[in-house]
């Protein structure tokens, strides 16, 4: 590589760790960019490796006794909340009168001790820890916009204050108020705590003094290299992110004179000591064990048995509700409905009711229409036994018939409409809207009788709605039968299907084939020829039926939505 690739992405990164944060170690490498650096560019990692050895064997020396070019490069390994003093701080705290707080005095002691033992390890790179004044100020003095008169919002100030607080205090406040759900008159303190995020947080700044050589120790030349934040949930925020395999970050300083302007590059790496392989393995094993046991515990709660049905059978299970009826002439509606199973191959458990009557419901206006809500539950199951696959026709599907009636003031009923719909053949949720019609008598007299006396024409056989049960012929004719279209009834059905045939088939087949096709595989007799033949027959029958009937009776009365 002839040229350095700069990393311009200085966004923050979020890490999570359950390990104690004191194990965190960072390696920061800082170097001034000169023209020669551009020519002999080495990957940062390799350079770092050499330097670690150097750093460990080199005796610590005072900052003053160095040649300029050595000063241009520095590498430090920093632990979490480890204090490295800057030249400025060293100069400041040497002076007894500058120390005010206990922390200042402590720093002074440490600096004096360092001076006696031969000076600081670090020269340009230093840190501000959580307890330093800088971190407090920085929290809300940080500018975010280019506005010259940017003032930190009350929210920024509050966040800065709240997050300083330690865990213990928060715990006490929490337990005291837990008993009441609502705090009727929140105090200032409560608001401060609750309107901001109050997860305790510790911050640390890694800084660099980028002053010209020999002029260290001025606040003006301090630059932030990296901000680290760790909260009590184990969330570690690093801004900018660890360098890793990216190129180094770059800082340019501006001085009033030409020679004060300089460019620097730096890298940040996570060099926290990893857990021993054995430890790692043990931890993995413990986790695996724990999860495994938890899984077993859960499945022991669940159990294993489940009802099964006879091989070759299809079970159709429907949870349904009569939702509503709307658009009818009279008020106080109720619905009478039943499910008819086709005669061939279908059966249902003997105890089961296949019919129901809803309550009578007074309607309410909804836009143009008057609606009656029933939310009447019904549930039924039916079995389809697929015995003979070479049979002449495709299996029929159950049909839902309904009849809407209205009650008058004297508790007499009128028929408002008849309707029918074939149950959906696919599993899942379906909303069916059934349009209904009623037999009509001509003339005013009949309508008046319907209004005053109640009662009206009824069908003797409700299955006349589709194809009468007694029908034997080839062509169905309803000629001479007058009807009037009335309102609609809405059903909601949740259908389930169960069959042993479904257990083998995989998901791809599920999409490709219909229910009936998948059932057929069971007796191993079916060939594509049979199936195609059956479809052709069915289509021919459909066409014949269509030609022989008036158009409006052919289209199924139900509409799927």
């Amino acid at each position, binding site marked *: 590589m002839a040229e350095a690739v700069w990393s311009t992405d200085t966004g923050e990164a979020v890490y999570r760790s359950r390990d104690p944060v004191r194990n965190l170690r960072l390696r920061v490498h800082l170097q001034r960019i000169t023209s020669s650096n551009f020519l002999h560019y080495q990957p940062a990692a390799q350079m770092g490796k050499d330097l670690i050895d150097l750093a460990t064997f080199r005796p610590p020396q005072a900052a003053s006794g160095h040649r300029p070019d050595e000063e241009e490069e520095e590498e430090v390994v920093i632990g979490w909340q480890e204090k490295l003093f800057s030249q400025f701080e060293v100069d400041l705290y040497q002076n007894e009168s500058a120390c005010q707080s206990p922390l200042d005095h402590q720093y002074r002691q440490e600096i004096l001790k360092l001076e006696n033992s031969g000076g600081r390890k670090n020269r340009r790179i230093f840190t501000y820890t959580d307890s330093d004044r800088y971190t407090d100020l920085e929290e809300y003095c940080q500018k975010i916009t280019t506005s010259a008169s940017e003032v930190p919002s009350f929210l920024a100030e509050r966040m800065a204050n709240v997050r300083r607080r330690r865990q213990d205090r928060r715990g006490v406040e929490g337990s005291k108020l837990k008993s009441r759900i609502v705090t009727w008159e929140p105090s200032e303190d409560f608001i401060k705590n609750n309107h901001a995020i109050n997860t305790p947080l510790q911050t640390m700044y890694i800084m660099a003094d980028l002053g010209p050589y020999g002029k260290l120790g001025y606040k003006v030349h301090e630059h932030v290299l990296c901000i680290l934040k760790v909260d009590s949930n184990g969330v570690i925020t690093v801004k900018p992110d660890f360098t890793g395999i990216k190129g180094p970050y770059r800082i340019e300083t501006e001085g009033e004179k030409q020679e004060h302007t300089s460019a620097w590059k730096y890298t940040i790496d996570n060099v926290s000591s990893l857990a021993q392989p054995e430890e790692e393995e043990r931890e993995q094993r413990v986790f695996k064990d724990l999860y495994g046991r938890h899984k077993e515990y859960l499945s022991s709660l669940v*159990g294993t048995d*489940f009802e099964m049905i006879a091989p070759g059978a299809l079970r159709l299970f429907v949870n349904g*509700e009569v939702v509503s009826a709307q658009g009818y002439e009279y008020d106080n509606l109720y619905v009478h409905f039943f499910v008819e199973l086709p005669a061939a191959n279908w059966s249902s458990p003997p105890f089961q009711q296949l019919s129901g009557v809803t309550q009578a419901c007074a309607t309410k206006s909804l836009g143009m229409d008057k609606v009656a809500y029933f939310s009447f*539950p019904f549930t039924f199951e039916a079995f389809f036994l697929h015995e003979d696959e070479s049979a002449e026709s495709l299996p029929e599907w159950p049909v839902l018939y309904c009849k809407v009636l209205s009650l008058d003031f004297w508790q007499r009923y009128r028929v408002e409409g008849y309707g029918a719909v074939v149950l959906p053949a696919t599993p899942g949720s379906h909303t069916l809207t059934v349009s209904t019609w009623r037999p009509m008598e001509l003339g005013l007299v009949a309508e008046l009788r319907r209004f005053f006396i109640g009662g009206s024409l009824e069908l003797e056989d409700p299955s006349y709605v589709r194809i009468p049960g007694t029908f034997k012929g080839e062509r169905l004719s309803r000629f001479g039968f007058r009807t009037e279209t009335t309102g609609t009834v809405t059903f*909601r059905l*949740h259908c389930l299907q*169960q*069959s042993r045939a479904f257990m083998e088939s995989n998901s791809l087949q599920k999409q490709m084939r219909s229910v009936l096709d998948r059932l057929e595989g069971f007796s191993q007799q079916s060939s594509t020829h049979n199936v195609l033949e059956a479809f052709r027959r069915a289509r021919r029958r459909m066409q014949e039926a269509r030609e022989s009937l008036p158009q409006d009776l052919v289209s199924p009365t139900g509409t799927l939505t």
Partner: protein
Amino acid sequence: MAEVHVIGQIIGATGFSESSLFCKWGIHTGAAWKLLSGVREGQTQVDTPQIGDMAYWSHPIDLHFATKGLQGWPRLHLQVWSQDSFGRCQLAGYGFCHVPSSPGTHQLDCPTWRPLGSWREQLARAFVGGGPQLLHADTIYSGADRYRLHTAAGGTVHLGIGLLLRHFDRYGVEC
């Protein structure tokens, strides 16, 4: 056994003439079903909406069932009540809906109804309040005795329910 997770919210209600509504809810299942975790019934907060006429409850539901069979699939039954400024409660509607059987997210609209009573009681309800209530809550979610009732249509309760199924395919059930 197969497992069913019912995770979602009772969002709120529209179309009720009363304001300050709350809702009592419960889930009924058959004998083959076992509740492993979660709460089977509850009561929402009382909401007086500021915008529009929809009362919002945002009441979370999180249930984990195990089942041996399909019979007795969970049914959700609801009672909507209104509360006046003196804290008195009045029935606004009963409703029920089947918990859907297909996995995924469902927006359910559950229409409600209430018993009408005699014309005297209807008149009294219009002026004083009150009105007949059901003796047994199971009338809400079973169809057996419904034909004896004469009811009036109420508003609609809106639910957002997510279904998560496990091991039904193992027993050849398609949902």
